[in-house]
């Protein structure tokens, strides 16, 4: 019975592997320095002026909002692709479904727009 879970394990393993590889590629392919850097080297600017940007730097809330909205609409549009590919197979039902889906997206868009979430403040 556990064998049925094999694809899942493979999937998890593969995901970890890919993630790890991408992370490590930096150190593999990036420029390498042999010697350890001095403390001066570790300063953001070697000219000695302290950095204006603090570690706990906050982005404007609008950035998150826009980013979130982008992801939402972006992902919702992604749902349209499979339907578009198989529309003929699904028939009219899917067409109506899709129209309803788009209509709801429009509603959401109108809401977001009218509420002023798209304005940069």
């Amino acid at each position, binding site marked *: 019975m556990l064998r049925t879970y094999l694809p899942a394990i493979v999937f998890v393993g593969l995901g970890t592997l890919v993630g790890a590889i991408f992370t490590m590629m930096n150190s593999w392919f990036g420029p390498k320095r042999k010697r350890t850097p001095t403390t001066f080297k570790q300063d953001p600017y070697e000219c000695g002026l302290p950095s204006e940007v603090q570690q706990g730097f906050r982005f404007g809330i609008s950035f998150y909002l826009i980013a979130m909205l982008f992801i939402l609409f972006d992902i919702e549009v992604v749902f349209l692709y499979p339907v578009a590919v*198989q529309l003929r*197979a*699904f*028939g009219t*039902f*899917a067409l109506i479904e899709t129209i309803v889906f788009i209509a709801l997206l429009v*509603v959401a868009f*109108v*809401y977001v727009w009218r509420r002023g979430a798209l304005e940069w403040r």
Partner: protein
Amino acid sequence: MKHEAPNIDWAGLSPVIALLGGAIVVLLAGLLRSRLVRERAVPFLAIVAFGASLGLGIWQWGEDAQVFIAKGSQATLAFDELTLMVTFIVAVAGIATVLLSWRALAPREAAHGEFYALLLTSAAGMVAMAGAQNLVTLFLGLELLSVPLYVLCATEMRRERSLESGLKYLIIGSTGSAVFLYGLALIYGATGGTDLREIATGAAGEAGGDVLLLTGIGLTIVGLGFKASVAPFHQWTPDGYEGAPTPVTAFMAVATKAAAFGAMLRLLDVGLIDAQPDWAPLLAILATITIVVGNVGALGQSSLKRLLAWSSVAQAGYLLAGVVVASSLGVSATVFYLAVYTMMNLAAFAVIVARERETPWGDDIASVAGIGVSRPALAWPLTISMLSLAGLPATAGFIGKFYLIDAAVDGGYTWLGIVIVIGSMISLAYYLRVVAAMWMRAEVAAVSATAQPRLAGADPEAERPQWELYLVAIAAGAATIFFGVIPSPLFDLATAAGRSLGLL
């Protein structure tokens, strides 16, 4: 490759469509500039949506609509009498909530459109949850119910308690949802189906020995118990109830409970009926704990909302008795009590809202002191509500408890019946305190050096009594008495709901 479109019974689905369509309309109407539209038309539209849902539900009564039938499987959503009863309860609670929050602070702070749209969405989730015949639909309903409620709890954005309540509910609620989902996954793993009928077939052979299934049932009960405030998964209830805006509390108290118990009845009494010998004793123990914890917790509370929160925990314990026995009588008794519970709680919350706006005492018991003389039209509904919650005869609460005890005794759980009786005996202590405060104490002077700061809910313009609050309080109070004296109409509905699950 040709796919067959699922068969959708639009007429059967119409109560939910009304709610969700209403949510969209309300959301968009809330965007209009006109203040009149926002403050008058939006709540009105919300009431229309709830009313339409109620009306369509009545139209669909007896149709036993099975919507969303994909090829070769059971419908994922059933609009049988049980679902429709939950729909009625949710719709009535929704209408009352809209009336209570019409002139409240919460929708003004959170914008009217959003507030009522969230309310309607949550209601749709409740109906879906109660009607779900498929684990996936069930979980979908649960989340559709919960997420808007998390937000609604925090709609009085400038009051920390409200934010705290929302955050707490969110975190504990997510834990509950996660546990529930895990439980569903285990049940699926054990029985090989997400469909309740498939689960029933799968569980038939497994019951009693399968760890996977039993663990799944346990986790599912915990998840639903969380939503229904069953001890020991009730901790969020007092804080959540107290912090949330009072109209939202009212909605949470009655509608969520109805949905959770509707789902619990269907899942346990249909899908897992063969495992009943396994889960029933556990549920009975939980019921006992819940009754004790709820009633003991309510003793000595001075905040009315906290008191009602603990009381709702206790009532959840009574309601569990109807689930434990897994009989059609038990289902009817549970549904009947849910309906009754809705009436009595709405009456109480309407009075609390009214007094929150009239006095500086917030929801403290001092706010109702002496209203027997000054505001009899509010005192009577609250009195009726308290007596009914305590189970005094001639109120609907009495016949409701009687019915539950009968179901428990009939199902071989006489001791649980005794626990219910003893629980209601203890509960008299705190309910009567409220009644005594209303009729036997003098009104607490509004101007006082030690007066608490005016709660955010108190509206300085609203010193005058507001008719919609009186309407809700009196209608709910009158219904409590009416169904206490002539319960047969409600009985017939509850009996039909009880039969709909096909139990003995």
